[in-house]
């Protein structure tokens, strides 16, 4: 109930300021359109847009959920952060509301990106159930990333350092993954950081659901497991940071 109240408040703001959703959508959108157009000529096996879509979806998640914590800085400038902090609202509800808010704006982006891919003749081979599985993986990723972002916003002194850090981390995480090149085609020295990057596994599982012939349930379970652990850890971290924010 408390979570819903807090979420209701932030989503009202979000829909009055839709530009905050659009802004983080632009870059993934350009990548989607650019890459699929440039590499269309080389399409030897299947649709390149379908190949790159999972990476682009993840990029969207990293951008929009990664930056989500920035809202704290403007809340702290006014008195509403204080108002909520001294209320009986549970700290975990505050984090949960933040995650759901980030999920709503991220999923709006995901739906737009999916819609455009559909127009570019991408078909999800695993069907509706596969799409639901994709949504679950993406939601867990959003929860992990947005909780980390929230915790960071409490630790870093101002917006500038926050944006600088988020920007520094986001693109390398995207490049050092299987987003652009399949894992088994990567140079061997490069494979180690790629396999350590949890987002590689998310992209691989998404790719399997988008264009794979069969669903490898073990791989899916493994990815879900990793994400689940990361979500719990980042959630605990964010709640802890919020409780410690009073010293």
């Amino acid at each position, binding site marked *: 109930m408390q979570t819903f109240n807090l979420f209701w*408040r932030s989503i009202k703001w979000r829909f009055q300021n839709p530009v905050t959703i659009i802004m983080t959508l632009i870059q993934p959108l350009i990548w989607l359109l650019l890459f699929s157009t440039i590499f269309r000529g080389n399409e030897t096996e299947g649709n390149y847009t379908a190949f790159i879509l999972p990476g682009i979806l993840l990029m969207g998640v990293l951008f929009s959920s990664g930056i989500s914590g920035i809202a704290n800085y403007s809340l702290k400038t006014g008195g509403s952060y204080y108002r909520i902090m001294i209320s009986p609202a549970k700290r975990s509800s505050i984090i949960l509301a933040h995650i759901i808010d980030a999920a709503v704006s991220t999923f709006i982006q995901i739906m737009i990106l999916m819609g455009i891919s559909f127009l570019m003749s991408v078909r999800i081979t695993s069907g509706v159930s596969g799409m639901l599985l994709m949504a679950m993986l993406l939601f867990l990723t959003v929860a992990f990333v947005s909780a980390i972002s929230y915790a960071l916003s409490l630790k870093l002194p101002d917006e500038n350092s926050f944006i600088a850090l988020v920007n520094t981390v986001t693109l390398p995480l995207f490049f050092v993954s299987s987003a652009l090149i399949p894992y088994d085609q990567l140079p061997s020295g490069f494979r180690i950081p790629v396999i350590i990057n949890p987002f590689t596994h998310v992209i691989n599982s998404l790719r399997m659901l988008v264009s794979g012939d069969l669903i490898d349930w073990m791989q899916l379970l493994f990815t879900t497991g990793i994400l689940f652990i990361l979500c719990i850890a980042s959630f605990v971290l964010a709640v802890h940071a919020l409780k410690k924010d009073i010293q």
Partner: protein
Amino acid sequence: MDAISVSHLSKVYKSGKKALDDLSIKVQKGEIFSLLGPNGAGKSTLINILTTFLQPTSGKILIMGRDVCKEQRAVRPLIACVAQKVSIDNHLTLKENMLFQSRLYKLDDATANKRMDALITAFGLKEYEKQRVTAYSGGIKRRLDIAMSMMSYPQILFLDEPTVGMDIESRKAMWDTVKKIKDDFGTTIFLTTHYLEEADMLSDTVCIIQDGHELVQDTPENLRQHTHLNTIRIDLDGSENQQDFGKWISDLQFVRAIRQEQNTVYANTQNAAQDFHILNQLLVDKKIRYSSIGIITPSLDDVFLSLTQNKGRGV
């Protein structure tokens, strides 16, 4: 049981700044308690600690008998605070703001709606209901801020400098509001201010703090000997013998102390308004030549100065 009891509270920020230094105060239930002090005295830090927003470095604080540091969950539903920064959400309407607050404090919808209507009437906000919150003036925003904070019917309401930056008319309206909250809702009110007049007029108890330590806590009547510690200033004509005059005036029964600066004599008296006439008459009778005489009302600085000197701390 006291509404608030603070003993030996200290707060040192990570930066090393000492904001509160062995502070002890008591606030009784149902009273208006004013914390008076210059900027940087530690008023806001104290409010932040009392409202569970900041952790103290040391000391013990009880709110309605509950430990603020250890029983935050029990304390939070009992209090509300109107901070210096306006905390209403500009993207919500007046009613939405109030309902959001009510849900933070877990009120059911029926109670929330009933209280909301009562508070909108009590705070004269009816006519602003339809307007956009962003279009409100500062005074109306603050009034809504207070009305919101009252949604949970807190037992203690904290007001951090509620009238700062307001014109005299809005300040008077605010004073009425504060009194109304106390009378109609029985709420204990803890407010901070740096206006002496405000503290004097509103409060049942006034506490003056400086450099994070309390100087005195008393009723305004008892403090009045500080605040009405009036001084009569006499400018002598150059031809008068200053030393003889000084001796003569300090021997007068009602003069407690004097200070002399060349031709000007400052005489501290018990009741300046009354003693002024007597002294004036005496000067005329004794044919002492002077160019001016008048009562100087002490500024807040004078009161602080006299207090800090009395207590031997600070300055």
